[in-house]
């Protein structure tokens, strides 16, 4: 009984923190329809700003409250700058580009923060009142957690009053319901959006500031926070503050009891709950179907016949690549190997994003599954691997990842774009967590080492990559690829001629998973090792960038993107100490300048 009460209260405190983060995200999404990836960065900024303020103030409760509010307001002001400087320009861009642009902000903030606050964790010295305990049923319970528990409903009540009892709130709700109608009625969208973004950012800052007494300000919070917030917002229903509160309660309690009872499986448990909720209620607990935003849906680009010279160019490229080891040194060959693998990784994602019309923000999941499948199979044999066993290990990669992709796809393909992007991200985080926590199998953060193939591996990579790219390209032009595109162009028409969009898309998920899995398997042997970083969010974003760099609307795009990105990365990494800053800036510039990607920018005819 005591255990139950204690865990329940811990869960409530966790829920309150989750709610503060998710509320801002969901309000912003409801009105602007932007999934703000940088929300976690705003949370982190709030924590650091609060640290700077609170360490300079007297340590009593009143000054603490004032400092926390000041940090929230400051974060709100940063939010305004972000909205006016960037988001305002991309409200009509495809949602994937919005996600990417805000991820660019994440990268930039990651590099700028250490300059301002240094690389170390910053703990808040806690005065006695913050360390106090309250005895509940003979259990000592932290006073501060009780304060958090009270703050959750308080913020919910204040938000409710703001949304339902003020003119500003009426405008927010009107714009959430139907943005274009609200605009047609003469509501100044620019001011409204800026104000909403400020409100959401201030809530993120408040959450960050309030997290400070329990956890030091540190530079890893941004991504962990944003993933949790995504889960809460998706379960609650995008745009619903009440839903976010319910979902925060659910997830907070799941975490508290999960960690106490089955620590290893907590993340998996949360994901399972999320899957069940979305299967029963595809729009989340309290969410409504999203009203389409008119004018933003870009008409599908016409894909014509590839020019005749393209086959020749590709063949020439292949022959040059075959001869490369005789001409250039091992470093260049290593980069070329990576580029080939990157092309396969990107080409699979392109199939589901381009012809399939399904964005994925967690494509590294399949890459990682493939890498681990190959490495674990290889480890089961004796190293170094003779060619036959290498073939078996490599075959395991696309099979495992492809089947996993098909199974996952079957459940999620009926969801809309934003939910899909968030769910794929969440799934990748699960795989990442399993990879880094299940040390018995995966070696945890130390990874799996020493999986070297006993043969010149570059030509293996070249052969398999070229074959996969060729097959993927044929698939896009084959009847299946056309049917997939048909389902994307017009689902009602596709159904009316007897196609099954659900099955078509799920298979696309499987193909994309298999390609990424093969890429992962090749990468494992090329590097001789596998680490959880293969499944990181950053790696998923790499895949997206390669596809977008090449252009979603083109078939040749992922090849160009993979090559350009790998080359660029190599150069950036060598010359720039702050590569995240550069990459973030590049992403934002790319989104602002070329919404159709590089190949799209120079395209006269479809490639």
């Amino acid at each position, binding site marked *: 009984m005591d255990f139950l009460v204690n865990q329940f209260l811990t869960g409530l405190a966790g829920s309150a923190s989750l709610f503060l983060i998710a509320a801002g995200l969901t309000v912003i999404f409801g009105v602007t329809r932007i999934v703000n990836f940088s929300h976690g960065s705003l949370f982190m900024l709030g924590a650091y700003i609060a640290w700077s303020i609170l360490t300079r103030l007297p340590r009593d409760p009143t000054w603490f409250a004032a400092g926390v509010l000041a940090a929230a307001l400051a974060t709100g002001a940063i939010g305004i700058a972000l909205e006016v400087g960037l988001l305002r320009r991309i409200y009509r861009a495809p949602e994937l580009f919005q996600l990417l642009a805000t991820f660019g902000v994440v990268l930039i903030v990651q590099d700028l923060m250490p300059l301002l606050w240094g690389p170390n964790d910053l703990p808040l010295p806690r005065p006695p009142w913050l360390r106090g305990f309250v005895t509940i049923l003979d259990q000592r319970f932290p006073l501060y957690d009780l304060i958090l528990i009270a703050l959750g409903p308080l913020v919910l009540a204040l938000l409710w009053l703001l949304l339902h009892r003020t003119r500003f709130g009426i405008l927010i709700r009107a714009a959430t319901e139907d943005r274009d109608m609200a605009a047609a009625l003469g509501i100044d969208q620019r001011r409204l959006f800026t104000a909403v973004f400020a409100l959401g950012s201030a809530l993120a800052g408040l959450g960050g500031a309030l997290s400070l007494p329990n956890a030091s300000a540190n530079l890893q919070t941004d991504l962990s926070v944003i993933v949790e917030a995504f889960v809460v917002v998706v379960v609650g229903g995008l745009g619903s503050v009440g839903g976010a509160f319910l979902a925060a309660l659910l997830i907070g309690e799941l975490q508290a009891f999960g960690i106490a009872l089955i620590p290893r499986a907590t993340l998996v448990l949360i994901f399972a709950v999320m899957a069940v909720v979305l299967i029963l209620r595809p729009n989340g607990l309290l969410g409504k179907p999203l009203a389409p935003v008119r004018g933003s849906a870009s008409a*599908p680009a*016409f*894909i014509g016949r590839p020019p005749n010279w393209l086959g020749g160019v590709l063949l020439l490229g292949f022959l040059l690549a075959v001869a490369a080891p005789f001409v250039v040194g091992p470093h260049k060959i290593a980069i070329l190997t990576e580029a080939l693998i990157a092309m396969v990784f990107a080409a699979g994602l392109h199939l589901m994003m381009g012809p399939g019309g399904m964005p994925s923000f967690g494509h590294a999941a399949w890459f990682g599954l493939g890498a681990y499948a190959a490495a674990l199979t290889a480890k089961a044999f004796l190293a170094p691997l003779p060619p036959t066993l290498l073939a078996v290990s490599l075959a395991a990669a696309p099979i495992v990842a492809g089947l996993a992709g098909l199974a996952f796809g079957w459940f999620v393909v009926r969801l809309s774009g934003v939910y899909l992007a968030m769910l794929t991200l969440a799934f990748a985080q699960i795989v990442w967590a399993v990879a880094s926590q299940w040390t018995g199998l995966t070696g945890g953060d130390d990874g799996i080492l020493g999986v070297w193939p006993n043969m010149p591996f570059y030509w293996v990579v070249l052969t398999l990559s070229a074959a996969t790219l060729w097959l993927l390209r044929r698939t896009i032009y084959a*009847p299946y690829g*056309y*049917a997939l595109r048909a389902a994307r162009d017009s689902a009602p028409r596709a159904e009316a001629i007897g196609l099954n969009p659900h099955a*078509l898309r799920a298979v696309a998920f499987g193909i994309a998973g298999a390609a990424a899995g093969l890429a992962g398997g090749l990468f494992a042997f090329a590097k001789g090792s596998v680490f959880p970083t293969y499944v990181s969010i950053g790696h998923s974003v790499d895949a997206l960038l390669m596809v977008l760099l090449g252009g979603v609307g083109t078939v040749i795009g992922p090849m160009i993107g993979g090559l350009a990105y790998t080359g660029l990365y190599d150069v950036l990494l060598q010359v720039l100490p702050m590569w995240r800053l550069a990459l973030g800036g590049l992403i934002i510039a790319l989104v602002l300048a070329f919404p159709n990607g590089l190949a799209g920018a120079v395209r006269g005819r479809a490639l």
Partner: protein
Amino acid sequence: MSLLRAHNLRKDYGGVRAVADMSFAVDAGDMVALIGPNGAGKSTCFGILNGQVRPDAGQVLFDGIDITAWPARRVARLGIGRSFQIAQTFGSMSVRENIQMALIARRGFVWRFIGPARALFVEPADALLAQVGLEHVGDRACATLAYGDLKRLELAVALANQPRLLLMDEPTAGMAAADRVDLMTLVRRIAREQRCAVLFTEHDMDIVFAVADRIMVMDRGLLIAEGDAATVRANPAVRAAYLGEDDAT
């Protein structure tokens, strides 16, 4: 025996009875118009027929098979084609490819992963395009077509499925007046040739009286009259519910 039969269809939305009790039949090769004032329940009725709306009661039989609440793709495979109020085509494909896609689906070639789709069924696709007068624009991106031509393309896509019944929900919505008559005359001619039945809704009475073999009139969820143009015109209930509006103005 009738090709399509609807028995005692009923559908409520909240407290509103959209379709109260509809029974009707469409014979093979018949061109039937379903008309009625706004809110009479035509669209709901159509939604039930093509599987988008699950009725609260009643059933739909096609060729003796109960297809009530079947998903659209199963209905399509049985041989029911449809057009949409706002033309639905595959915008990333050429005009010919739109037809080829429909033929690929019809002939069960969808799950082929090798071999270019654009080499398949070129001649049958061109023949279908010629039928609707689009033979000169086969290579154009279908997004570049004028709206009237898009409607024709949609018709050709539906015909690729060799339908025995075409369901057309306001097929001429959004078209210029002259185009409307042309399109429906074309539909009538092709339907005759292929012994394909057509059930359509339409607001323009001139078109209805010009092309329909039979007219069914709905009002407040009920079928209040049916018959040929003269019968319907003379029916007092129809005049009161529908044409009566003309008298009042």
